[in-house]
């Protein structure tokens, strides 16, 4: 069973993602800040990460870079609300494999996660 790290500062968003993923047979670990995401990535070694971009303390891009520094092959998809495409491009440049737009459609998230763990 593939393990997914869901990172979002909004508990509501985490809950939605976690429920969707567990219902579809994934094991889910959660983190609510960038720093926590990095720590959990280290301890849990998930197969893939769904990473929110806008978070307090450490933003998603910084967390992404730290995660990729821990494991250069880390599979990360960024989660973002509609906004500046440049942030997403920056994330893709920093090594994100994919991204999901909030509010996310269930099939889109599942599709992205499936690709990440493939």
């Amino acid at each position, binding site marked *: 069973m593939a393990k997914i790290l869901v990172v979002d500062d*909004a508990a*509501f*968003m985490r809950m939605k993602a976690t429920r969707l993923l567990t219902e579809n047979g994934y094991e889910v670990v959660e983190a609510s800040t960038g720093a926590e995401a990095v720590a959990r990535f280290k301890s849990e070694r998930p197969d893939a990460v769904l990473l929110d971009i806008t978070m307090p303390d450490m933003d998603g891009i910084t967390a992404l870079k730290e995660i990729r520094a821990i494991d250069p092959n880390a599979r990360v998809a960024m989660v973002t*609300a509609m906004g500046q495409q440049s942030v*997403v*491009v920056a994330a893709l440049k920093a090594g994100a494999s994919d991204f999901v737009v909030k*509010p996310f459609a269930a099939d889109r998230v599942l599709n992205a996660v499936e690709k990440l763990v493939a």
Partner: protein
Amino acid sequence: MELAADITSEDLKVFLEEAEEQLQLLDDDILRLERDGASDELLQEIFRAAHTLKGSAATIGHRNMAAVGHASETLLDRLRNGDLAVNTEIVTALLHSLDILRAFKEELAGEADEEPDIEAVVAELEAATGAPDDADTDEPADPAPLSIDHGVVAAILEAEAAGDAVYRPIVTLLESCEWRTVRAFQVVSELSTIGTLLACSPTSAEIEADIVGRTIDAIVITKVGQEALEETLRAIEDVGSVEFVEVSSGPSPAEDAETDEASGAPDQSSAEETSHRAQRGSQTVRIDVERLDNLANMIGELVIDRTRIGQIGRVLASRYKDDELIESLSETTGHLSKVVSELQEDIMQARMLPVGTVFRRFTRMVRDLALSLGKQVEFITDGEDTEIDRTVIERIYDPLVHLLRNAIDHGIESAEERRANGKPETATLRLSAYHEHGYIAISVKDDGGGIDTEKLKQSVVANGLETQESVSRMSRSEAVNLIFTPGLSTADETTEVSGRGVGMDIVRSNIEAINGSITVDTAIGVGTELILRLPLTLATVNSLLVKVGKHDYALPLVYVTETIKISQHTLTTVSGRTELLTIRDQVIPLIRLHDIWPGGSGAGRAEDAVFAVIVNSGDKRVALGVDSLTEPQEVVVKSLGGFMGEVKGISGASIMADGRVVLIADVASLVNTAGRRPQRDAQLQSEAPGGSSDLTSAVAGNLEDAA
């Protein structure tokens, strides 16, 4: 309020709890913002809270709440980026938006019945934001069509020669794709991952700038095969179709600029059109000047290596006589040498532009200027086809504007005056370009009144630039050259046309900065001719190589008039310091380059200088004392990096075949700081610098003396 179908009551509960937290935080923070003013951390925190609230609202499907959240987020983003400063209007708008968000929340929680109206608050937020937030909905500018330049064609040929497959996929994104920039970035990234991306429209720079259409047109070399390539591209979200256009290296598949501009967006250019365009081909390609410069630089390096290999080969040949391998090395080197030379010539040729491109710009200027001054001028241009390096062309535009203005304003007389002097009322102003001894000469010649040297002398004296005594001793040509005196205005009164504070001295220094020279020929009542002599290119410079102490220097030949052996000429010392050489009745100051460039330990003493190189800049002439001379050669100019700063009397550097670094002397500045006018210079005009063959033989003669 209609919510998304999959929202359960538990979802809503979590959402409401969290919304309350965010609203509370926003309440406190916005008030803090008003009280304490903005800080980066505070604005970031407010932005994040609004952003999170908006994201969650959108997820539960609450469109109105998300819309208000979005409008506040946009305003906050501008605050955060420093585009806006916090003011009462902004704080009020944000507080109003909070009220509405809270009302929505209460309505959702069942605490209120009325769903609030969002129009007023969104309008208020937008007014506070300033420019409407249409970045997401605006059709962005269209990217330029795929540009296939020399480099790409060469790479395609290379790949084909190596048996690699080259593909040109045209990816069309779905109409519904909202994030074209990101998708285009993903397409380009994938292509770069599975192969070598040769060209792409939109380019990476365009993607960075959000200039992305619905299609992505690319040329890629890859080993994975068309099927796998297509599969990879289709796997990217929002990719609608992937089509392949045949890539042919036959005639360059270059696009025609004008047609492309007319056809516009790649959205409109279907695969068929693109394919048609690719097959039609064209005889020319557009190429970035920077790329040409890079190529020229690399070829410069190649030239150095070639010469070096040649030298090594010769050493080996003398060391191991009759060795077959070494013979074959020399043959190969010979061939390499030939190819590199041709390559160098070709790239120089590619950098050339006919001077007509700049001449054409003057026709209108001359006409307007003559009209405004009420003068009748026939403007004739000659030799427009003469080709010259594009960097030189850029650098001569301003000087030529100045010379032409001067000619019309000061040189050419009014129609009445001309008639009174028995000249045709319509003056002739001729701008011509021609080849002369390996240089390009550009002449600006008018049949005007000529330079009145008496008036010029008075003006120079009146401006305190020379003394009455010194000008009274000047020959006519010395006096003519006074037009290059810094700070001089030749007009009786400063006129609107020429009185722009840019004197002939600036013109001259601009021309000398590119290793060119300028000379004047004038006769009262007959006219004035100014001749610019310019190098064909700035990439290399024909130089005389000299040794000073331990180091080698290159003196650009354009400045060199002759070389002499010091001992064969009279040397006098004045004021105990300045040395003067008398050469054919002319007295020329001698600058021993050892004094300017101390050569470090073991360097020859200044007194040891054996040879003098006579150099000219403008009307000044000096003799530069050096230890030894080598034959003139073409050196490849490498500019001194910024870190070296301004080195006195040095304009650049070059690397010789044997790896030695040679510094290129800035002769004009050496002459201008230390030079003086020759005491007698009847031959100045005829001895204008030009790198004549006489000079080369003179140098060769001295080399023989030295040997």
